């Protein structure tokens, strides 16, 4: 008897073998190493670490290799591993003024203390395919100025804030940091939880929502106060020591978006903020996140929330690509029992409709 989508252990085993075979591809082509993925597909690694909520370049590279470059699948692999890891606690908040910035720009001022640093960016590349990359060859190293780790970079926002033109950042909440990966999201959510959700959220989804605000669906007149990318130290307070020690450095991209605000009954007109942060170098993600963060503050700032990007339930419930990918693709699972129930009813409804039509025709003929 032929029954679709049924199959035992053997079928699944064969499918897994085929998948592993496809993953390796032509055996005459050299196999990718994790180091190659980390070094030469670094931005893919950054995205997988960000949306996978796990800062580990080699694990992210492994996930990308295993997923054959499908980044959402790689994010899923990394998260499913991360969820089994024990929690030691929460780090101290990152201090991004201590960042050793490779790149730092502000679009609100011609020059800013600490200077504009262009760094490595695709922004000014001409998008012409570089056929010289098709042939392998050594590239000369680019000249760089020595990094100054002792020099603190003031935030552009802080300068505006001094004059009262920009709202201060939210006061530090000394309560225990909530963890979205350990507790269910309960709505309405606090801003820290919203930001956690957005940081894990799908880049494409946030990009589309951020873009929609620019096209008038919840516009908040954004300016890039500042984007910076570089290394920041991570500090942790071990219980047995009682004071903070530096446990390492991570690369992050931070976006401080400055937005117009007309003021309200109690607050004079001033600029407001949207915030974005991502692991590695991910400006598109950090900027989109900042736009959506600001849009989601509509209620708090007394603005009319009429657009999708301002709708907390809509945004937070659908931002996660691992959830979305799973639920969309679960339609591939057999649904033939439910479909059978529908068949039974549709046939019955059609029979009844046919009977009604015939009766009506008979009644008409008798008249």
């Amino acid at each position, binding site marked *: *008897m*032929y*029954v679709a*989508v*049924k*199959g*035992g*252990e*053997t*079928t*699944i*085993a*064969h499918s*897994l*073998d085929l998948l*592993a075979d496809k993953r390796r591809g032509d055996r005459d082509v050299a196999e990718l190493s994790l180091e190659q993925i980390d070094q030469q597909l670094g931005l893919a690694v950054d995205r997988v670490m960000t949306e996978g909520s796990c800062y580990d370049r080699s694990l992210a590279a492994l996930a990308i290799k*295993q997923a054959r470059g499908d980044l959402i699948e790689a994010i*899923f692999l990394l*998260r*499913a*591993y*991360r*969820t*089994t890891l*024990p929690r030691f606690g929460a780090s101290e908040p990152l201090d991004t003024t201590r960042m050793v910035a490779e790149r730092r720009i502000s679009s609100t001022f011609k020059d800013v203390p600490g200077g504009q640093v262009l760094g490595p960016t695709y922004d000014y590349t001409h998008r012409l395919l570089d056929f010289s990359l098709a042939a392998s060859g050594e590239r000369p190293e680019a000249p760089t100025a020595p990094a100054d780790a002792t020099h603190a970079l003031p935030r552009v926002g802080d300068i505006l804030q001094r004059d009262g033109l920009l709202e201060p950042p939210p006061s530090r909440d000394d309560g225990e940091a909530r963890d979205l*990966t*350990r*507790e*269910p*999201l*309960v*709505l*309405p959510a606090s801003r820290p939880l919203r930001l956690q959700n957005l940081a894990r959220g799908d880049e494409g989804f946030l990009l589309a929502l951020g873009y929609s605000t620019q096209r008038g669906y919840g516009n908040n007149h954004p300016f890039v106060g500042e984007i910076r990318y570089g290394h920041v130290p991570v500090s942790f307070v071990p219980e047995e020591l009682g004071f903070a020690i530096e446990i390492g450095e991570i690369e992050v991209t931070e976006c401080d978006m400055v937005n117009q605000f007309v003021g309200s009954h109690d607050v004079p007109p001033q600029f407001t903020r949207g915030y974005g942060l991502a692991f590695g170098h991910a400006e598109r993600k950090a900027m989109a996140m900042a736009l959506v963060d600001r849009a989601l503050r509509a209620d708090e700032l007394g603005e009319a929330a009429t657009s999708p990007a301002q709708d907390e*339930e809509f945004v937070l*419930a659908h931002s996660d690509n*691992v*959830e979305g*990918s*799973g*639920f*969309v*693709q*679960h339609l591939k*699972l*057999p*649904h*033939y*029992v*439910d479909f*059978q*129930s*529908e*068949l*039974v*009813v549709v046939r*019955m*409804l059609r029979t*009844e409709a046919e009977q009604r039509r015939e009766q009506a025709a008979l009644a008409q003929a008798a008249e």
Partner: protein
Amino acid sequence: MPDTTIQDTSPQDGAYNYGYLDEQTKRMIRRAILKAVAVPGYQVPFGGREMPLPYGWGTGGIQVTAAIIGREDTLKVIDQGADDTTNAVSIRRFFARVAQVATTTHTAEATIIQTRHRVPETPLTDGQILVFQVPIPEPLRMLEPRETETRTLHALSEYGVMQVSLYESIARHGRIAKTYNYPVMVNGRYIMSPSPIPKFDNPKLDRSPALQLYGAGREKRIYAVPPHTPVKSLDFDDHPFEIETWTESCALCGSTESFLDEMIVDDTGKRLFVCSDTDYCESRR
């Protein structure tokens, strides 16, 4: 003949706790289950974890099973009533691997039955646990998409919107045309989604001697129906609840009482009807 053993591509199994989830997570899920049992039909939020299987493929049911399973348990997993559908095979294999548990296809032998879209035909007994995989736990979701709203509706037992939707179906079709995921009232208090089982199975939920646990992984909710709890399918006095019937009988075992799957067996559209519950069908042949 190629080697058909499944290659272990994950990190060493020894790196994982018994039943995959760590003990702290299991305790958290058990607390949610206890609360769910104490308040039948109420959706308890829980800190759902990322599982190594995709969301929408039974992660809620898997977490519930992982939290309650022990070495002495015997597990049965079905999808569409069948033990041999690919996803059922995959989940059963997962637990055989991470919980070294005995598995069975016989309903009567199982202590835990994880299911998607069906309730077994063989009546369940005291001590058995039926774990449902739930895609959308909120029965009012298609009528009201906002969680903040539906939570309030449940708190106030404000269920008029559901009655109206059933009434509209009668007005439009002459009958309640809802066929699966048919809403039920649990213990006279909460309207509950029975998960997308056909309404044919709804009567089996009523006062069942087995414990029913419902897990929704993506939506991070657990709810339950304790043994012997009244579960009533919503209806009207002049439009009483009724289940699907077939004029055919099972082509394999001849049953006229079970839920039948319809199969198209040739290019001319010839049809064959067989039991959806494979264990029930095999036991009668």
